């Protein structure tokens, strides 16, 4: 078969610097999916954008041909996308024969124009359809990508839709002109895992229906295993390995591909659970409920109550890791903030903290100002985004010694020695103390925030998605570091994440949260191999794994992630009331009617 698009010897550079993409070649046949895989900085995004020539202004195409072959409804011979004029690019290629979906559905739609207007615009640009015919076409397309009420969607603004729905709108926009090739640049990276599964399923269906080809840019080998027929692995601007997906995923030949595979977090085989009899709990959340009051836009409107956490009971034994897993809006971050005393608790709840074994518990939920400072020495936090959690205007030394200064511990020289010790502990050379954060990579910055959190020698560390902003191989290193430090210093972790595979590796116990409620709680090996609750099943099923024999089970995802009314009888809500959280086996709690 003649390839639809064949890219040969593509090189791209910025100004006079050495090229960021070097001699890259790949091709995609009609109806086929090609995955461009790599970590950040691998040049995968820039290579796929080069096809539509949507590049930063300083980028230059140094060499290469990108041949888009003529199709049945595109007469006029092959086009070399590297050479054709800007006018022809606009008229015949962009949005017409080749469409594109971007990573951030939140920001890829104009906030000030209605969805209908933005989608129909593609038809007005590339067809002669009347306004009415175009609207009919768009509404049909909305229905196809899964909007329950196309008319309402037509009138909606992007900020009225959720992330998943916006990405569906983006897909509708890309599909409405029936392109031959769809380029999707990390289309699901910003989405929750169940939403990701549904969007990937939708893209696959649409592809089968229309026979279009797809170039999927991703860093996630699990997504590749579920979607692609062909794979190109890129690293530092070069192709490391390419070919049909199945053999590469079963037996990667190139060391870099193997490295990527090993770094990808996996759901573990059953390990024997660690359970010791008497419990020394460092942190306890007892019947914690948190209600937020949202003021409505109009001053005379009634305020809405949002329940971020409802009747949460958690216990963290000393030296262990307790993980809270959930999607956005599940209340997991609120629970973490409550554990640190950064959020008050509705009356009736209690948060208890024991600094050392057998000590009197501190009531975190009713701390005074002075007690709070003492408590904060014992409990620290590692934040999600290492790029914004370090002040860009402070040297590393100052950032690290600031906690000591606030708590007025030791003199300047001792502080510096301590900072150097912490840097060594997190695996960074000590001569970096005088640098500023911009000199560090994402992984190094996360090491720095861990070092900062450890400066006060806390007993408890709350980690809020510490690896979700990092590449897989870096994520692997950070998780290893966290495990080593925990075991070396007898730390306890409260670990917040949306990623089951990450949690599976580090946690001793996992609580799954959905809309403020814990729906299931168990040690990871029990949870992953014997999940009971439909939502837990959906989360596990939605997790893309780099294994061609374990595709995402969309039926399970759709059922578990849907409304509680669609769950099996035993798990349904009784009107507003959720069923109780009951222990099925020792250490395995599920929210169901028994």
């Amino acid at each position: 078969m003649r390839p639809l698009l064949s890219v040969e010897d593509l090189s791209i550079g910025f100004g006079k610097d050495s090229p960021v993409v070097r001699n890259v070649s790949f091709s995609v046949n009609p109806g086929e999916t090609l995955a461009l895989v790599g970590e950040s900085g691998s040049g995968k995004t820039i290579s796929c954008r080069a096809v539509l020539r949507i590049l930063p202004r300083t980028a230059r195409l140094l060499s290469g041909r990108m041949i888009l072959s003529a199709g049945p409804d595109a007469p006029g011979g092959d086009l070399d996308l590297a050479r054709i004029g800007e006018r022809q690019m606009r008229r015949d290629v962009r949005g017409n024969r080749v469409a594109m979906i971007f990573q951030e559905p939140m920001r890829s739609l104009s906030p000030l124009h209605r969805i209908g207007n933005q989608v129909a615009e593609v038809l007005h640009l590339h067809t002669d359809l009347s306004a009415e015919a175009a609207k009919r076409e768009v509404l049909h397309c909305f229905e196809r990508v899964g909007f329950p009420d196309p008319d309402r969607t037509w009138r909606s603004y992007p900020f009225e839709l959720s992330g998943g729905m916006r990405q569906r709108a983006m897909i509708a926009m890309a599909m409405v002109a029936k392109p031959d090739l769809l380029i999707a640049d990390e289309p699901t990276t910003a989405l929750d895992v169940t939403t990701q599964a549904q969007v990937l399923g939708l893209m696959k269906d649409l592809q089968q229906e229309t026979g279009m080809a797809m170039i999927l840019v991703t860093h996630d080998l699990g997504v590749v295993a579920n979607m692609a027929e062909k794979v190109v692995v890129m690293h530092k601007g070069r192709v490391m390995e390419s070919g049909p997906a199945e053999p590469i995923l079963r037996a990667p030949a190139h060391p870099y591909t193997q490295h990527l595979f090993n770094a990808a977090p996996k759901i573990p085989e059953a390990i024997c659970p660690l359970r010791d009899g008497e419990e020394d709990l460092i942190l306890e959340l007892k019947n914690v409920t948190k209600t937020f009051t949202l003021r409505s836009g109009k001053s005379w409107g009634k305020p809405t109550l949002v329940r971020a956490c409802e009747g949460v009971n958690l216990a963290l034994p000393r030296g262990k890791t307790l993980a809270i897993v959930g999607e956005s809006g599940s209340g997991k971050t609120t629970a973490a903030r409550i554990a640190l005393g950064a959020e008050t608790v509705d009356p009736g709840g209690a948060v208890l903290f024991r600094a050392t074994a057998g000590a009197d518990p501190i009531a975190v939920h009713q701390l005074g100002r002075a007690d709070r400072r003492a408590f904060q020495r014992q409990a620290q936090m590692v934040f999600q985004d290492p790029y914004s959690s370090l002040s860009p205007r402070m040297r590393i030394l100052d950032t690290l010694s600031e906690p000591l200064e606030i708590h007025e511990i030791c003199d300047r020289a001792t502080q510096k020695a301590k900072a150097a010790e912490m840097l060594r502990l997190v695996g960074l050379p000590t001569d970096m103390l005088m640098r500023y954060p911009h000199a560090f990579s994402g992984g190094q910055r996360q090491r720095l925030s861990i070092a900062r959190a450890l400066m006060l020698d806390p007993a408890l560390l709350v980690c809020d998605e510490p690896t979700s902003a990092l590449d897989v191989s870096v994520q692997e290193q950070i998780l290893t570091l966290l495990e080593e430090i925990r075991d070396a210093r007898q730390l306890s972790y409260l670990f917040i994440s949306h990623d089951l595979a990450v949690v599976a590796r580090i946690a001793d116990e996992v609580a799954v949260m959905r809309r403020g409620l814990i729906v299931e709680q168990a040690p990871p090996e029990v949870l992953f191999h014997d999940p009971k609750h439909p939502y837990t099943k959906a989360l596990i099923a939605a997790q893309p794994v780099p294994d061609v024999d374990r595709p995402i089970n969309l039926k399970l995802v759709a059922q578990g992630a849907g409304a509680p009314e669609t769950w099996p009888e035993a798990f349904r809500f009784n009107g507003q009331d959720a069923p109780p959280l009951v222990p099925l086996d020792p250490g395995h709690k599920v929210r169901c009617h028994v």
Partner: protein
Amino acid sequence: MQILAYAAYRFGTMLLTLLLVSVLIFWIINLPPGDFLSNQIAELRATGQEAGVAKAEFLRREYALDKSLPHQYMIWMGFLPGPHGFSGMIQGNFGWSFEFDRPVAEIVGESLWLTVLVNLAAVLFVYLVALPLGVLAAAKSRTMIDYTAAFVGYLGLATPNFLLALILFYYGHQYLGLPIGGLMAPEFEGQPMTWDKVRSILIHLIVPTFVIGTSGASAMMQRLRANMLDELGKPYVETAVAKGMRPARMLVKYPLRVAFNPFVADIGNLLPSMISGSVLVSVVLGLQTIGPVLLQALKSQDMFLSGFVLMFVALLTLIGTMISDVLLVLLDPRIRYEGRDA
């Protein structure tokens, strides 16, 4: 319907604000010790003109200046009856100018709407110049076009307005035959409106508009350019390019639409800064606007005159902000639908 309710609500708050402002204004113009009449009386006494003193004393009673300040305020606004019954601002009696010995309404009369005219022309000029130049500078950023626009802009910001006025008068008269000074040819002053008078005013408007508008235009141009550059880096712009839109159409439909909001919000701020900023220009150009009147009235503590002028400027400002608020709600669905369920 929602928008009408909002406009009504904004109008209500505007009236309330105006009331508060009136208290502030009255308080401030009475801050310096004494008033026009007591100063005059002291001066007359010193020079021994007892007859004048009697008249001034009479005027003091006539205008209730012997009452307490709050009482004076209530009379001035027309909430309480004065020596001649209810006769204050809300009844349309703007008071008496002691310095000119004429009713305030008569003094400000024509200059009121000339002020509005000059400033509206300047605002229009600001928008007409800043909009295309700002967009162009952003779209062609880091090219000669951008640098030239920035240079001209900074020149406009840095040149003192009155200097620009003098230069423009000289060359405008020399090469284009534009008139010097004033807002109309002298023979039309105080005459009823005729076609010739309108034409004379329009020709006289050219230089003042340019002079008053330049600095505002260059400031706004720089701001629009910065806003546009921010917007141009956002993903939705890429989406639009990937659709196959022409660059010019894309610029206008997407980033400009978003960058336009602060632009609209500025309408309210533009008016007062122009009126106070144009005082010097008005003096230099000999414009019969309200600025020089205000300056004179404040210097001589001519309280009713300065009070009225300040109230008028405040009213213009409040109307300006109200217009920009209502326009913003019309333009930006995020403001309009705040609180609507997604």
